């Protein structure tokens, strides 16, 4: 039986990199969050999610967590969607509120807007469509 740290490192390893297989993608701010959701989905037997985290480019002077890289992640994800079309139905972005929930939300909204093509939620927990699509 592996110890917790062993399982954890293995799970994190399997989180990165993947080919889109599940209809839903949960993009977490960091590894700890991803690990939490991975275990939660495992316990609840939820299998319809891929879980991923944005990679932080340390040499670009970014501070904070992966939340600053959601835009870059979503832009890069378009290549994965192009290579595996018709699989992904929805993306959930998970991020901490930090000191000010509104500021955090606006920051992520701006990142999504800058990428283009993705729907931009106006408030947390709000499901929105990509331009030209409808929610079914």
């Amino acid at each position: 039986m592996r110890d917790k740290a062993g399982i954890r490192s293995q799970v994190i390893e399997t989180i990165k990199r993947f080919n889109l297989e599940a209809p839903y993608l949960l993009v977490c701010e960091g590894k700890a969050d991803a690990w939490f959701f991975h275990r939660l989905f495992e316990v609840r037997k939820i299998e319809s999610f891929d879980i991923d985290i944005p990679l932080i480019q340390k040499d670009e002077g970014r501070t904070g967590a992966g939340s600053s890289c959601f835009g870059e992640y979503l832009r890069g994800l378009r290549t994965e969607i192009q290579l595996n079309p018709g699989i992904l139905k929805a993306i959930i972005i998970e991020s901490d509120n930090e000191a000010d929930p509104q500021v955090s939300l606006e920051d992520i909204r701006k990142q999504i807007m800058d990428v283009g093509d993705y729907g931009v939620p106006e408030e947390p927990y709000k499901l929105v469509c990509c331009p030209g699509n409808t929610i079914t």
Partner: protein
Amino acid sequence: MEFKYRIGGKEIQTAKAELTEKGLSLGGVKDVVPGVFFGSVFPHGPNTVKRFSDLVKVNKEPSAVKAIQEEFPQVLGISVAENLGTPALFATISGVPEAKIQLDLVSHGISKFFGILLAIIATPKGVLLVDEIGSGLHYSQLVSIWRRFINTAKESENRVQLFASTHSFECIKALGEAVAETPNDLRILHFKRDNGESSVVKFAGEDALCAIKQGFEVR
């Protein structure tokens, strides 16, 4: 089979490849672009020696020699000499004052680097096709070498388009770092085969760069 292409913003041209009784025929080609192909197995061929000799004749070899010295400081100089009746490139190597060493025998990576660099310089307004560009090159030098190839290809007197294939994510990651400031220099053509059908998916510019930086599979 048809190939549609555009040169220098001019109208799209169509070249048709047909299998005839005489063999493969390529019709409809108006503008011919000079091209060089490097296979994945990379012997230092006579063409590379000729390209260097041609540069020497017009006193243009110093920039190429400077480039190899900057990338590989152990190389102090390059010259052409006969080896068993065949002209070959020889390198003066730091710490080996007694003899020059045939470049092929110094290092596969150095030899490959120099061969590609010379081909870029010798094929102005042309196309360079390099199979498995990262093989033989040391991982720690990949970024610098990509930059060197790209900057040399972009120089106004060269204007060469470089097509390179690789199966190495390390090599692609280094390419991403090399074009981080100029993502529009980057195009990734991903070849895939599903149920016997081949297709190409193109990623370009900032999207391609972000995919590389975020570790998505683009090979």
